[in-house]
Every structure is written in C-alpha cells, then in structure tokens.
C-alpha cells in the first residue's frame, strides 16, 4: 500500500469497508469468515514484507546451507555432491571436532549456570533500597554496552600474568602465584567466564524487572507465616521469577553454543599471528571458531555447513529438553504454561 496521502485514504476507505462489513452480534461468526474469505490478497500484501524477508534471509540460507553440507564447496567453485562425506568425517576423523565440542560444553555446563546465578544474586542485591541505587545499577549495566572485541582486548591486557592489574592485585592480597589466565590452558576458559560475568548487566536487568514484579503481598504473607529471608527467597521469589530464569537459561544455552567473538579475539590476542588453534593448546577452540576456520580460512564451506547443521540440531534438541522439563519448575502467575 502506498505511503502517500492518497494511499492512506485508500487504506482508510478499505478499513471502513471491512469494519462496515462486520455483522451485528449473533451473526458475527458467519459474517466474519465471509469477510476473511473474500479478502485474502490484502492479508498477503500486508504480510509480504515479513514473508519476503523470512524467505530471503532465513529460509533460503538454511536450505542452501543444508544443501552445501552434502557437497564439497569452497565458495569460489560450483559445489560437488559428496553425500554424507562431511558428516562421516566430522564424527570419525576431524582431529579437533571433539575438542571444540568439549570446550563448548564446558561453557554451557559451567558458564550458563554461573552466569544465571551471578545475575540473580546481583539483581537481588540491587533491589534493596539504598542510597545511590541508580548509580549502582548503572555501574553494573554499563559493561554490557562495551563492544565484545574491545572488552576482550581489554581483559587480555588486564589479565596479563606478570604485569596485568588483576594479578598485581592478587599478589597484593597474598596470592603469590596467580593464574596465567590466557597463557594457561587450565585458566583460559575461566578467564573468558570472568569476562562474561563482567558483562552480565543486560541479563541482570531482566532479572531485576522480574524481581520487582513479585507481588509484595506474597512476601508479607510469608513473613506473617514466620518465613525467614531465605525461605521467602526460596519459596516466593524463586518461583515467581522462574519464567525469567527459564528465558535466561534458553537464551544462555543458545548463546553459549554459538560462543565465538570473545574466544576468537582472546586467542588471537594471546598468540599473535601464530599457527596455533585455540591458544593456548586448543583450550579456546570453540565449536563456532572451528566452524569459522573451516569455512573461511580453509575454504571447506561444505564441511562448515555440515558443522552448522549439527550445531543447529543439537541446540534445538537442548532447547526442547529445557522446554519439556520446564513444566516441573517454571511457575506462571496466571497459572498457564507452555501452550502445546
């Protein structure tokens, strides 16, 4: 439909026709379906921007990627059908597939719960009325505004084992042999986790909103019944914010499966231009970084597409498991649940 005044008048006129065509009460059901049947093109036209975008930028790339996953494709030459070769290679011969999977699983199994816990605790602290509360909330939120690349480079410097401020501080408080962080394969992923916790502000904000939405009368009722602070938190607050935790868990798992920027930047910053994957010693080689290297450095785009589809399938499976189990621990105030 045109955005001009003439087009706007046409839309208003058409809207008037539709409204005027609405039947009086009692006959509304029969008359409404007749209106819908006689005007499918308006629906199609109004939906078309979304449909075109969905088709061009989601469906087509997904189908193309699926096709390429069964081919040998280097972006620059026509794809050659190889059947299941890429998938067989992935599970039987790729020397760093399971390394990448292991590192990614580490970030999911350890990183997601720690980030959720840290976000909840931080949000709880920031709900308590105190002087300067807005300043504290802003201070916690601001790091999440820093671009990931800049934040990672900053942390590589901050965590420099000998001269970095963090280790200098640790030595001041008596820890004479602080971790070598990005130079030590045992500490490189915890260093990335510390970086993630520093940027927890956006997640904290969501929990803060959920906590502030807990009805005060429930706390009051629990207090009257003799519940202490922990009991109120355990039996009132947690159930009431369980939908937020559920949302955070799902998005956190999905994000962790696709963990890329911080790992790629930290690895590059720590090793320079060296020929080491996932410096140090493969410890920061995550699934997405290995996928990226295969597709864009080694021109194995067909294999990278296969990796992408396995990632999609596993992510979908994990998400469905979380959704399936949510009935047992997610409480909705309206008494509803996941619509099936």
């Amino acid at each position, binding site marked *: 439909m045109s955005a001009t005044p003439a087009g706007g008048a046409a839309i208003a006129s058409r809207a008037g026709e539709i409204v005027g065509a609405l039947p009086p009460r009692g006959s509304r059901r029969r008359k409404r379906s007749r209106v819908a049947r006689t005007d*499918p093109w308006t629906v199609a036209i109004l939906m078309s921007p979304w*449909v075109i975008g969905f*088709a061009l930028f989601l*469906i*087509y790339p997904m*189908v*193309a990627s699926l*096709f*390429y996953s069964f081919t*040998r*494709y*280097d*972006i*620059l*030459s*026509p*794809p050659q059908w*190889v059947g299941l*070769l*890429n998938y067989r*290679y992935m599970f039987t*011969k*790729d*020397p*760093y597939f399971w390394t990448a999977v292991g590192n990614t699983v580490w970030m999911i199994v350890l990183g997601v719960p720690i980030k959720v816990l840290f976000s909840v605790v931080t949000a709880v602290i920031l709900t308590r009325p105190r002087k300067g509360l807005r300043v504290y909330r802003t201070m916690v939120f601001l790091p999440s505004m820093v671009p990931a690349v800049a934040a990672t480079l900053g942390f590589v410097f901050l965590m*420099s*084992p*000998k*001269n970095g401020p963090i280790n200098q501080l640790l030595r001041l408080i008596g820890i004479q042999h602080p971790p*070598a962080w990005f*130079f*030590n*394969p045992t500490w490189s992923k915890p260093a990335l986790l510390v970086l993630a916790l520093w940027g927890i502000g956006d997640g904290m904000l969501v929990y803060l909103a959920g906590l502030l939405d807990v009805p005060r009368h429930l706390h009051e009722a629990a207090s009257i019944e003799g519940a202490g602070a922990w009991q109120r938190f355990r039996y009132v607050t947690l159930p009431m914010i369980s939908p937020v935790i559920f949302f955070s868990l799902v998005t956190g798992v999905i994000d962790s499966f696709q963990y890329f920027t911080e790992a790629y930047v930290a690895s590059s910053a*720590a*090793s*320079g*231009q*060296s*020929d*080491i*994957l*996932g*410096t*140090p*010693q*493969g410890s920061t080689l995550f699934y997405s970084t290995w996928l990226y*290297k295969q597709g*864009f*450095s*080694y*021109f*194995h785009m*067909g*294999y990278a597409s296969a990796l992408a589809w396995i990632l999609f399938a596993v992510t979908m499976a994990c998400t469905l498991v979380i959704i399936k189990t949510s009935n047992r621990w997610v409480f909705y105030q309206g008494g509803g649940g996941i619509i099936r």
Partner: protein
Amino acid sequence: MRAKLVIAIAAAAVLVVACTSGGSGAPTTQASVSIDTTPVTLSFWSDFSPGGDTEAQLQHVFDTFHAQYPWITVKPVGNKDDQAIVAAINGGVPPDVALSFSPDHIGKFCSSGAFNDLQPYIDASNVDMTQFPPSTQTYTQFDGIQCSLPMLADAYGLYYNTDLFAAAGISEPPATITQLTADTKALTEFNPDGSIKRAGYIPWNGFYGEWGMAALAQSFGCPWFNEDGTSAVNSDCWQQAFAWQKEMVDFYGGPDNIVNFLSGLGDEWSPDNGFHTGQVAMMYDGEWRVDSIGDQAPKLSFATAPFPVADANSDQYGSGVIGGNLLGIPKGAAHPDDSWLLIHYLATDTPTLVYLVNNFKNLPTTNASLESPKLDLPDQFTPFFAIFADPNSSFPPITGSGNLYSDLTGTWNAKWQAGKVAAGDIGAALDELAQQIDEQSQLDTGP
C-alpha cells in the same frame, strides 16, 4: 494455506540453490594488451587502512600511473581482506584489481579461477618473469597457474642485540643451530629463584606470533609433503627439529618457566617489546622490525642476519622464510585489460617499487628494484634483501586449503612444547599428526 506457502518458498529456495550455486570455476581469460583509451575508473582493493600517510602514498603511486595511462583512474578501497575479496567475487561485484596481503589463499584463488590466470597477459606483454627473484614463484602461482604478481615482500631473519653479544664475547651472529644453542646459553641469565631474567633465544611457538613451524621447517630443511602429496611431518627431519626445540625448552627450566617469562614481556608492537628492552637477546622477526626499533627503541644497538640453519643443512644458510603481497585480477572484473596494465605497473615499475619500499619499509620484489641506488633504508635491511633474493628462500607450500597443514602442526607443537607429548611417543604422535593432515586434505580432494 500458510503451510503450503512455506513449502512453496522452501521448494523454490532449493531450486534456486541448485541452479545458482558457485560460478563457472574455470578461468576464461582472453588477454590482450589494451589499446582502448575509453576513460575508465578501476577499483583497487587492499587491506591497507584508509587515511594517513599510507593512503597519501598510495594515491601518489596511482597519480603517477594515471599520468602514464591518462584514461585510467584508480580508486583505492582499503580494509578489504581476502574474505571481503572472496565475498565480492562470489557476489558478482568484484573489484578490478585486488591486492592480497598473504599468500595463504593463493592456492585456492589460482585453482578456482578466483584470480584470473595472468599467463596470457604475461605472454602478450612479453613480461620477463626472471626479473622477479625466484623465491616469488613459491607464493604467486599454484599448480602452474600464474594468477598473481608480487608487489612488496617480507623476509624473516635473526635480530640480535650487539651490546649483549659484545658483553658475552660473541663476535658473530650464529649461522647454525649448534651455534644458536651455544650463544643462547651464553646470553641467558636466570634469577636466583630459577626464573628467567634474560633469554638468549626462545624457540617457543606463539612467542610474538612470528617464529613457528614455517621457521622450523626452513631452518632444518624439513619438507612439509612427500612427493606423493602426503604429509611428511613424521619424517626424521621433523623429529630432530622438535627434539632440538625440546632441548631448548628444558634448558630454560621447562614450559612453565618460559610462559611466566614471556607473559611478562611487553606487547609485540609496543616500545616494551622484549627485544627492544633487552630482555631477549635474539629474536626471529620480519624486516619491518627494523623500522619499529628505529621508532620505538632508537637507542637499541642491534644487527640482523639470516636465521641459523641446522648443521646438516648449513649450505642453506642465507635463505629464509619469505612472503608478500599479491596482485590479481578477480574473476568477473569489468575491465581486465586495464586491470592488467595497473598490475603490470605496480609489479614491475622500479621507481614505483622503490618509492613504496622507502615509505612502507618492506622489500622490493624485482631484481632491478632490489639493486636500486635510490633505496633509502637502514643498513639492517641489507640481510633481508639477501634473504629474499636467495634462491633457497621460500614460502611454505601453497595448498588449496590455505595453511591448514601448518595450523594442525602448530597446534600439535603447542602441546609438544608444553610437555603434553612424551618424548618417547613422538614418532607415533607425528604419525597421527601426518594422518590428520592427510585426512583433512580429503575435504578438498575426496577420499
């Protein structure tokens, strides 16, 4: 109806993918020396950062080219790395000329036709390829397809602190691995607690990202591949090379001691670089370090030399790892004949190469420019000229999958130098590594 619409879109997507994937694959260059003087603007893509002196200096070169070819105007576009070039080619909107900063991908560019085969143009223009040092042939062509010409190059060699050498009574830089080991031990100092105070030379993969498997292979003369194309990293040569590296790691007190020392050095590109500050007496680096020292540590007394080679490989002393920038005409370029004129000019015009070298502080890529009396560079550049011109200098083998074999070897080496692979198991471990490299290459060629 909605389900049918989605299915229809998906089916159409499959049809579109099957019909439009990739390009023709085969280069279809029909070269001629252009005499068409219709005004044309050529887009020149490179990974040079826009702005500053670099942009002005490039513009000077393009203005000079324009004066010689007045119908051709060159429009430079910066911050375009190989991935951007690939995306543009695949998207059907390639630049007219592309300058790749690394030979890692030239194998794929040549074999896929992403860069046009320049041989017809070379033949039509009677270009004498012997004007380029032989080392350039190791990184500008693949499988007999000359799809690029060199424009400025790099060479790696040894930097050594002459004051520290004099204090230790060492009069000459080491030429062999044995001498390097001895000099390292003479120049290294330990703190009372056993930590490293000053290092002679540390062959640690990942130290400032310069020394790595390519350097080790060049020093020891170890081949990357056998004649049948299979990986040769499990050869006796490589075992000896890795054994030497371990000997050096053990001398320094083990990998933890080295990591503690290296992690305390300043950033590679800062004035606090470990070599600048004298914490490291010898370092492996490219010719650009000469200019960096001049800017960041002007009081440092240093010299340069070819990197030492294995004693059994001593006849190769003087050679080294080299690399450089590559000029190519991307597939689908709108004005290939005019693009060729620009490439030919940039690759062979001596005054242009001398101008760029004097400003960018890299190495010139023709014999004439290497010998030009107008080169204005510090004396420490001289060994790098010789390294680049040495017929035994080379870039690691070009493959269709970039530097995958090097990355796999380097990642294995990271575990080896950290002591995660037992010395007694090195043979089996290298056999496994060679198999991994061979199997990865099957993703290019099939089982």
